[in-house]
């Protein structure tokens, strides 16, 4: 059996969601600081408020399936402003839509990531190298799409992609207004996307 057909157990959606909630609560300030250095500084607050809403959605909806958990995450982001809100929101919406049963497979997750990337690009019109979350997401999609691709491998590719944003100038988002000043600063959205994937890998095992 190919790793990509691995069923992720029924608790995966909940574990992942809770792991993200915990991790971003801790990391919001650091990510906000990156946005302050080369953007408008609201990314940390956007994240905090998104996961506050995720919790409200969870409380209200009482999700039981993987898709239902991810729908809560999606709505949390869609109810948050900025550019990252709708992009992450529609990203997670695609993940939810690519799941057909209670227990998603890695392949489904892979298709979801791929659809999510397409959606993010459709809205944001960013290519790899534009210093956005796409720089983390696109390599992850590639890695998981490869034969024997694993979630862990995808997470590692995302991490590498996020690191690569330090050396480039932003071409999208608020950071694109500061030009050279964005060089040397990691893109917070890319870092966040890499965290999302790392936490998925953590939650799968």
């Amino acid at each position: 059996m190919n790793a990509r057909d691995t069923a992720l157990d029924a608790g995966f959606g909940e574990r992942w969601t809770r792991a993200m909630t915990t991790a971003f609560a801790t990391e919001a300030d650091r990510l906000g600081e990156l946005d302050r250095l080369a953007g408008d500084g609201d990314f940390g607050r956007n994240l905090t408020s998104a996961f506050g809403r995720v919790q409200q959605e969870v409380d209200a909806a009482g999700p039981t399936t993987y898709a239902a958990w991810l729908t809560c995450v999606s709505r949390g982001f869609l109810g948050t402003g900025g550019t990252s809100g709708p992009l992450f929101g529609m990203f997670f919406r695609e993940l939810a839509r690519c799941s057909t049963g209670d227990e998603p497979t890695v392949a489904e997750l892979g298709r979801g990531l791929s659809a999510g990337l397409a959606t993010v690009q459709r809205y944001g019109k960013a290519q790899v190298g534009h210093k956005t979350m796409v720089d983390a997401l696109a390599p992850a999609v590639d890695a998981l799409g490869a034969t024997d691709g694993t979630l862990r491998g995808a997470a590692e590719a995302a991490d590498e992609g996020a690191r690569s944003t330090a050396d480039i100038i932003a071409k999208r988002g608020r950071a694109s207004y500061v030009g050279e000043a964005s060089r040397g600063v990691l893109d917070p959205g890319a870092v966040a996307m890499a965290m999302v994937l790392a936490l998925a890998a953590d939650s799968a095992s």
Partner: protein
Amino acid sequence: MRRSLVNDPDDLVVEALEGLALAHPTLVRHDAEHGFVARATPARDKVGLVSGGGSGHEPLHAGFVGHGMLDVAVPGAVFASPTALQLYDATRAADAGRGVLHIVKNYTGDVINFTVARELADEDDDIATEVVLVDDDLATDLGEEPDDPDAPGRRGTAAVVAVEKICGAAAEEGADLGSLAELGRSVAARARSMAFAIEAGTHPGSSRPAFDLDADEVELGVGIHGERGRSRVPFGPTDELVARLVDPLVEALRPARGSGVIAIVNGLGSTYPLELYAAARAVHGGMTARGVRVDRFLVGSLVTSLDMHGVSVTLLPVDDELLRLWDAPVRTPALTW
């Protein structure tokens, strides 16, 4: 040192919307749960018009909700796009069965959130939607191809008032979604704006303007979110500064001698009426000198940037049909005729 009148800066927008609804109970209501302002009495059997964007630009957009203009306005936090869910809920509220038109100023966040809202409305509720993107700010016209995916395009500013007014009138007359979208796009495509500021606005809770200017400097091609302009020019008499707006606008639009325009002479926040009407006079002079009629003037602080001190001029070449729609009755908190 600048100050704002606030309780908690984070509450300012919501408190102001509450105040707006209290002050104009027959015109608008504030839906606090979903975060939008709608007509007090929903319109029936017409296309719903929704606009929105960051706050700090009042009376835009909530001040333009009412008969003959918007059905629902969706305010974000100061200078921040409303969320996709807000816009989705607003779209559902605005739908009276004939679809919903989104009027969107061209800013990445707004564009994305409105787009998401339209997709949600389409997929989840089967509401037909269209969008008019308003991108009138000549200062951000870098001459790119309109389809260049790498180009953010011109910013959307005061021409949005004309789009809302004209589409609002046509919607009231029963125009369908498709023709409204076309009408709005044609207005947006014709209109251009340009602004200067002699003092930046100050964010609520902050004690300094968004940028500093020396006594002899004017920020030309300024935006409405505290961003810097395209260049700095010397301070001078009103007529001279207004010419720095009118000249490039005329250059870009090339209105024919004998043709007519609607001119919106817009204060950016703390420009006071003596200044603004003197600026309107200068605009009139500039157009008359070129043999172009100002068929209609709209003079006021309508699309603001908090308490920014400056002026924007919008020119919209018109024909009789646009004038007819412009003149149609409107009854909103900020615009009534």
